[in-house]
């Protein structure tokens, strides 16, 4: 059957066009894109594969040979920053995914089923959120032992509560809407209603939350490094800042400078992008 009704563009398509049309958001998107691309190149070994190589004297100052100077072992700080981008991006993605999976999963169950399920989940996240974040993080890192995996897991396991609350509230709102009732009338199963009907309608929240979790994960890694619980054996921005707290005593500022700069741009870009995404994806703000 043919129709002459013009189809409106999808939410995501229109959001993308809104971001592209805004200069600041576009720059943020490009910056994030560059970081992801660099991380990708590092992970396939095209960039910074030889980060461990000695290229200058120990603590050599920034020069045309070593742009951001050298670290204690004479390794290029610039190359280390590049290599650490992979760690940071990977950390951001994995942590956000874990947090999204747990937060959205539990939030949807609580909001949709209500009753006892809701009570248990609310009790659980209230308990988790009542433990000071940093303590919980340290405790999990201790239990899991040190290393990259445990940093990923401990950050992921401590950052899902906010999303869970939002999704729960949103699902509660949606489950009584007409389209869900229609699905109900057609005999759709609970999982179909949740995954096929409700989830797409709350997915914009997941995307916004992703950008927020991403940059808080990068910042949390720095704190963990200061507590001696972070990634060891491969460069990370947190590790470089941890090194710098000793090196500043001898006037070596370049590791701190380089790592902070690298962090600053991606965290800022994610913040701007998160803001833009919220404006673009929130149906309530549509058309404004």
């Amino acid at each position: 059957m043919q129709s002459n009704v013009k189809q409106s563009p999808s939410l995501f398509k229109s959001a993308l066009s809104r971001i592209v049309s805004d200069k600041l958001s576009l720059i943020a998107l490009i910056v994030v894109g560059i970081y992801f691309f660099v991380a990708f190149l590092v992970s396939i070994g095209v960039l910074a594969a030889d980060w461990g190589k000695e290229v200058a004297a120990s603590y050599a100052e920034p020069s045309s040979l070593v742009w951001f100077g050298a670290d204690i072992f004479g390794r290029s700080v610039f190359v280390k920053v590049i290599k650490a981008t992979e760690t940071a991006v990977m950390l951001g993605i994995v942590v956000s995914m874990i947090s999204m999976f747990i937060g959205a999963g539990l939030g949807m169950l609580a909001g949709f089923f209500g009753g006892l399920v809701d009570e248990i989940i609310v009790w659980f996240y209230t308990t988790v959120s009542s433990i000071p974040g940093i303590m919980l993080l340290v405790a999990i890192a201790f239990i899991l032992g040190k290393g990259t995996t445990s940093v990923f897991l401990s950050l992921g396991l401590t950052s899902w509560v906010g999303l869970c609350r939002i999704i729960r509230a949103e699902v509660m709102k949606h489950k009584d809407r007409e389209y869900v009732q229609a699905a109900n009338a057609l005999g759709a199963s609970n999982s179909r209603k949740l995954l096929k009907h409700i989830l797409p309608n709350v997915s914009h929240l997941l995307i916004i939350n992703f950008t927020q979790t991403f940059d808080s994960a990068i910042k949390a890694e720095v704190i963990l490094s200061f507590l001696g619980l972070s990634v060891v054996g491969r460069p990370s921005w947190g590790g470089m800042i941890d090194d710098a707290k000793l090196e500043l005593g001898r006037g070596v500022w370049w590791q701190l400078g380089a790592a902070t700069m690298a962090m600053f741009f991606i965290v800022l870009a994610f913040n701007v992008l998160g803001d833009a995404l919220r404006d673009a994806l929130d149906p309530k703000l549509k058309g404004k």
Partner: protein
Amino acid sequence: MKMRNIFLLVISSIMLVSGCAKKRDANERVLNLVSPAEIKGFDPIQADDLYSGREISKIYEGLLQYHWLKIPYELIPNLAEAMPEVSKDGLTYTFKILKGVKFQDDAAFPGGKGREIEASDFVYSVKRLADAKTVSTGWWVLDGKIKGLNEWRDRNAKLPTTNYDEDVVGLKAVDKYTLQFTLAKINPQFIYSLAMPFTYVVAKEVVAKYGKEFINHPVGTGPYSLPSFDQSKQITYTKNPTFREKFYPKEASPQLQHLLGDAGKKLPLVDKIVVHIIKEDQPRWLKFNKGEVDITGIPKDNFATAIKDNKLSEELVKKGIVLEITPGLDVTYTAFNMENKLFHNKKLRQAMYAAFDNKKDNALFYNNTAFPAQSVIPPGVSGNDPKYINPFKGPNLDLAKKLLAEAGYPGGVGLPELKYDIPDSTTSRQGGEFFQKQMDQIGVKIKIVTSPWPEFQAKVKKKAVEIYGLAWMADYPDAENFLQLFYGPNKSPGANGSNYDNPEFNKQFEDAVSMQDSPARTAKYEKLNKFLAEEVVSLFGLHRQSYTLEQGWLKNYHNSDFSHDYVQYLNIDNAKKAELLKNF
């Protein structure tokens, strides 16, 4: 009106309180120290690390101690009246215990008043060290030395509760003030163990009252007391009010004559000690530079600014700070846990040693102030041959690669990733990364595992490590103290954290340590030292020098390798402190 009165009352009481506090501060002599690692607790039989040993020695005491102002080190009586009478056959040591020495007041004693120490307390304390159920980390110092003690230990290990009333032939309280040790065989090092924290005297009642919590309730006979220990970042000790009459020494070796200013004064000299637990170098350094800490080492990253041409920088001199450089009787080493069969492969160990660049390690982490270690015994202790060069000591990458291939892992192929355990400070992590980098050159892959100091030690004791980095500081000036690190019966939880057990080495070691100090014994020590070097039982790193900075108001301090109880001799010149602090 009423409100105004209340307000005035509050203000005046604040002023009164702060005024009182200030007045007290001005007269009180407070010593501020730092510990770069957490303290495990206050149980003498677990005092196997320097940091815990130092804290325990503020509260507990032993039969003997080292003379504070004598170099070479000299053992003198502490809780004993005099040095022991030794029988002609060299096997029986008889001590007279000081009369009237009391344990600190504690609720464990009747009426809360500490009772007098007796010879039987020493018998109990030694048995406690030997008790297999206490899992002491210091049993190795007496293992096999006292007649009948090993048998007592083995017998009681099988019983549900240890029978402390059962007599041990070689360990007797002859009367209230006479204590007698009979050795299983001649052992010249035995006497040193009586000045070590492991054998400090504890009271049976206190151990019984606090049980597992005894480790946090120290009650000794020493100059300072601490009601309870709670793993905080600051430990505050106060003078033990019932401390006996003990006086500052009146004699000193020629080089320490300048420390006789307080000769004859009653000990301890300062009223309060505050120990700040600061793991990281920079906060420690900054605190010292603000005048809030009285003694410190120099962090590697501040060395260049603090020391110029082996002299203190002008800025620090202006603050009245004093530098003391002393070679330490120690060795840094990277140990293999030999329970892991992989490390039985001698060529692998040798290859790793040859790959490690010790000179660079010295430059990066010790500002080139340390001396390369060829084996375990440091210079200044007989058994160290200054001419000896270890043929496997790196950096020699060609040799390393060749040896690795001979070990069966050409280019590291087939060798699993090895775990390298270190404490969790930033410097240790950098050290770990350096080791990882060095090993990577020959294809040996290393994974760094960091843990807080007490947890790290616990892992070594439980044999839950593969490779780990550590330093050993002498407990007494005898090579036996270094060689025993590889003596089979001293395996973890003993001092032999490598769990190396070579019957031939064990036999030769036993022969050597039963000899009196003589050229023949030195020759044996040298032979054993070279054997360990070429076996590459550990990757021996450096013998460090200690660069210590002291505030100008601190009196009587000098670096001592063995006097863990040094704080009782230290003094603070409050007037000078007020004066010098103006320059900070």
